[in-house]
């Protein structure tokens, strides 16, 4: 259906080719994942398909791309993109109209379809969004916005759908919901779907083929099972196969067929015996001192109709020295609100927050900042200076701190920002921005650090580095609180998990217990790491939270007959 023949492209004036001699065929009704590191040319490849390249971004274009046998050279953006729908990674910027219905009729209207309203409505129906038709776009949640962007793209009844990193900005429950919709579009409507995706667990569950790109060329395109079995090649390129595949690979690297989904892994590990493990060894905590305390706190926000929507209800919570707390719960459960209440960006409607026993009611955010650092979900909004070094020293400078130079230099080194320190934070990559935002927070030398989604929209390799960095926080702060959707982060980092549901704490426990309790997981719409699911599948109890832990608990029992046959 889509045929690339020796396609190369470079931006005008650039030396490097962004696409180099790409020849590949995407057949009708494929569901293909495109993987590859940063700068591998994934987005560029997709933009050739909808004609943005070379018709909008004019540059040196060589070779030939055709859709359904029609040469794209004789076409234009308008006619190509009415066949090829595109959903961007930063989908929020894709929504250009105020209301949901306006948004989905925008494209059909622009292309002059008389039945534009019906088309829009049909697209909404397809994704079960009809009830949102009259809502204003900015009042929707992230997951809903993504679906609206998708509906807007589907309203043109395209043949091909391209989605750029759909789950990067969604919480796990919404990510699954999105992929279920894609599966439906693929199987029921026969759409050809291309996703740019880092999360191999989704690839294994939903995609049929995988295409690996590197430095502007297509390395290979294989069926999903075969592709994800190339564990060594993928890890070398910083792409991490599913946890179950990794576990199996570490167990028997030479195995011909590694499992890629949970189901397959269940069968693969069937013949293993499981070590019993006593209840986890718990250190009786030293006498913990309470630092932050919530006492009957209520909070709510106002809507357009001036009504107050409750977000936090009667919160009682103590944060103690040495705590590594993960706040978890679905979107809108009140995680970020709790962080803002601590740092003073918002004030409780009722109740009070205490810091070491003193009420914070009359304490300004500026004053609280001397003890508490709050790091945003979106690092861009923390860059208030024109270079990172100035951002890091801002806090110390306005306070005329005597050791500002030393502290700044130390932090710059500690976070490996030596090369980047004179650059504007906005121009860095996602991973570098996170690192810089963490550095800004720690330069304040806080006692308590609050982080909002520190691993969101990072690729897997950067995310691992981030988790390691968070592991070292203990040496410099007394307590850390992270609001997150990332269950792998919870599993590997937290010592205490506070589960929120609709503004109320429904559990305050350890990661171990959270992941053993499937009822609780479901109630808070959380999705456990795959390795935990595998433990449930194999009835390993208590569950293990990491691949290493899992590997220590299983043992390959070669049956006697097999040993015998080997001897012979």
């Amino acid at each position, binding site marked *: 259906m889509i045929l690339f023949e020796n396609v190369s492209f470079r931006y005008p004036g650039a030396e490097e080719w962004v696409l180099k001699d790409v020849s590949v065929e995407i057949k009708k009704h494929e569901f293909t994942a495109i993987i590859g590191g940063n700068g591998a040319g994934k987005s560029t490849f997709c933009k050739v398909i*909808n004609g*943005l390249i070379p018709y*909008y971004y004019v540059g040196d274009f060589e070779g030939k791309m055709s859709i359904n046998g029609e040469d794209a050279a004789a076409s234009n*953006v*308008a006619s190509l*993109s*009415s066949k090829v729908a*595109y959903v*961007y990674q*930063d989908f*929020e*910027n*894709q929504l*250009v*109209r*105020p*209301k949901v219905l*306006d948004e989905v009729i*925008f*494209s059909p*209207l*622009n*292309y*002059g379809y*008389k039945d*534009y309203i019906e088309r829009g409505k049909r697209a909404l129906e397809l994704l079960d969004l009809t009830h949102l038709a009259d809502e*204003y*776009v*900015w009042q929707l949640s992230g997951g809903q916005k993504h679906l609206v962007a998708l509906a*807007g793209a589907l309203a043109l009844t395209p043949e091909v759908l391209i989605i750029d990193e759909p789950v990067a900005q969604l919480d796990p429950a919404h990510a699954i919901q999105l992929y279920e919709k894609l599966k439906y579009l693929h199987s029921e409507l026969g759409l050809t779907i291309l996703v740019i995706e880092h999360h191999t667990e989704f690839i294994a569950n939903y995609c049929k083929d995988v295409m690996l790109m590197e430095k502007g060329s297509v390395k290979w395109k294989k069926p999903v099972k075969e592709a994800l079995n190339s564990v060594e090649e993928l890890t070398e390129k910083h792409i991490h196969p599913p946890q179950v595949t990794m576990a199996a690979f570490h167990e028997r690297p030479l195995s011909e067929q590694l499992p890629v989904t949970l189901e397959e892994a269940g069968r693969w590990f069937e013949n293993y015996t499981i070590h019993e493990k006593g209840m986890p060894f718990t250190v009786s905590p030293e006498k913990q001192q309470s630092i932050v305390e919530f006492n009957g706190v209520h909070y709510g*926000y*106002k*809507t*357009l*109709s*001036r009504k107050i929507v409750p977000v936090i209800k009667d919160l009682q919570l103590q944060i103690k020295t040495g705590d590594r707390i993960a706040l978890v719960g679905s979107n809108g459960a009140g995680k970020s609100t709790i962080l803002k209440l601590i*740092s003073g*960006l918002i004030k409780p409607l009722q109740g009070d927050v205490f810091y070491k026993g003193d009420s914070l009611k009359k304490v*300004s*955010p*500026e*004053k609280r*900042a001397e003890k508490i*650092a*709050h790091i*945003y979900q*979106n690092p*861009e*909004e*923390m*860059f*208030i200076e024109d270079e990172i070094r100035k951002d890091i020293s*801002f*806090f110390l400078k*306005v*306070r005329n701190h005597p050791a500002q130079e030393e502290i700044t230099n130390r932090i710059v080194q500690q976070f490996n920002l030596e090369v980047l320190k004179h650059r*504007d934070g*906005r121009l860095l990559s996602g991973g570098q921005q996170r690192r810089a935002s963490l550095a*800004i927070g720690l330069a*304040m030398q806080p006692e308590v650090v609050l982080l909002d989604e520190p691993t969101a929209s990072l690729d897997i390799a950067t995310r691992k580095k981030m988790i390691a960095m968070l592991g070292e926080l203990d040496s410099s702060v007394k307590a850390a609180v992270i609001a997150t959707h990332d269950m792998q982060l919870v599993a590997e980092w937290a010592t205490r998990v506070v589960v929120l549901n609709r503004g109320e704490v429904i559990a305050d426990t350890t990661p171990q217990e959270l992941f053993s309790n499937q009822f609780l997981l479901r109630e808070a719409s959380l999705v456990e790491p795959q390795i935990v699911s595998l433990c449930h599948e194999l009835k390993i109890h208590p569950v293990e939270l990491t691949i290493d832990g899992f590997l220590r608990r299983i043992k390959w029992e070669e049956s006697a007959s097999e040993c015998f046959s080997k001897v012979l």
Partner: protein
Amino acid sequence: MSVFQKFFSKLTVENIKIELMRTAYGNEPTPLAKLDPRMLILWVLIYSIIPWLTHNQTILIGLTLFTAVLAYMSRVSPLLIFLLIVGVISQFTYLVFAAMFLGNSFTVLIAVIPVTMKVATVSLATMAVFTSMDPEKFSDALLKLGVPGKFSFGVSYGYRMLPILIEEYQNIIHSFRLRGKLPAKPGFLYSRYVFYYIKMCIMAFYPMMLNTAKRTRTTVEVLEVRGFSYTLENNIAKDIKLNYLKMTKYDYYFIGISTLITALIYIVGYQFPL
């Protein structure tokens, strides 16, 4: 809590955002909202000219009252009314002070009243109209009146971006507060605090503009992909889209009644000039 403190506790970025969005989109079924947007634009244009053509104070009082009634019927946001009052009062006082300083006479007080009423009439009329017409209708009306498509789209897109911009701005201000340092003493009449906040509000603009500029890259591509440039070149969508704009009897009644009331005000004004 004093009235003053109570007021300032309500003057948060969040509340201002809500009031602005209510003015823009929070459409209630008021009499003016049912009108064709073109009629509203025409009406507000006329009413921003009329007051400047007369010195008759009776007429000016009448016009101010008429537009005030319309503004009341359109349920204009209290915040806007408050800003109008502050604006009018401050303008009035500074004109009086200036005149007294230069002319040293209290008669200027009376001379300034007509100007103030003219400004009030125009502001009230504008507020009534823009509360009754959401940006979508405004943009469609402009398009129908022959304004280029890029401009009319810009109007509606600008409004659509407003809440996002305000939120971004708010977050950046928060960023300053989370790292900044309040002056140790409030100073005379809180002057140091005020200076601190004003400085912060100005400094926060620069990062906001840069962040916004970064976002628009995707938006520009999207407009291309979703056929916006295509429709500008071909003009196909225009007719389909604007089909719903029709002048009805109601519109003619409105312009009729408006003219009648204005005429009445003029007649009374000429009969009983103040």
